């Protein structure tokens, strides 16, 4: 496994602003993912963060709204742009280990948009 940290742990933001969430892992990993968990719901994959290339987005998520950076094998950021109250969610990063794709999650960032 790994130690995965996220910053910030929570934030309250105004409509129309942007927030960048950081995910740091204590070891090098190939695969990193960003998920969203809307209130009372399960997790939905936003994108796969690829090191050295553009992220791979899931249907319904676009780069202009959720730009992702992956400058190295231990770090990634997710930006939630031009926020609206519908973006209020928990955002989680995860990393994959080993041949069996065992995935571990960061503590999450709880975002509230007013």
């Amino acid at each position: 496994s790994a130690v995965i940290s996220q910053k910030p742990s929570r934030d309250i933001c105004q409509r129309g602003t942007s927030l960048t969430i950081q995910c740091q892992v204590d070891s090098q990993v190939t695969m990193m993912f960003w998920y969203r968990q809307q209130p009372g719901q399960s997790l939905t994959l936003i994108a796969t963060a690829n090191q050295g290339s553009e992220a791979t987005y899931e249907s319904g998520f676009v780069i202009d709204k959720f730009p992702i950076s992956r400058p190295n094998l231990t770090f990634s950021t997710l930006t939630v742009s031009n926020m609206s109250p519908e973006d209020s969610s928990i955002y989680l990063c995860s990393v994959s280990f080993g041949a069996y794709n065992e995935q571990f999650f960061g503590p999450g960032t709880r975002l509230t948009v007013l």
Partner: protein
Amino acid sequence: SQQGEEDPQALSIQEGENATMNCSYKTSINNLQWYRQNSGRGLVHLILIRSNEREKHSGRLRVTLDTSKKSSSLLITASRAADTASYFCATDAGLAGRRALTFGSGTRLQVQP
């Protein structure tokens, strides 16, 4: 889209009782993973069971997998109040170039002291 469905959606039991949660999925898988989430915090990885395994144990946790029925169950024995959480199953379809997991809808477990 969510491929997994879990039942029950909510479960309330007394401390010391066993809790069983079920997960069904639709496509073939490489493995299935169970997670615990305490009141909107991060997910804690519990167990990974591979498609060629039928049962795994970890402490008070027992996971079974029936690939013919596309279903899995998580049993927590001798539950404690600290087991109160939401539990999610997640499947890895093993598709080339896609290692992200697909999550079930989750079961909210309440253990009464």
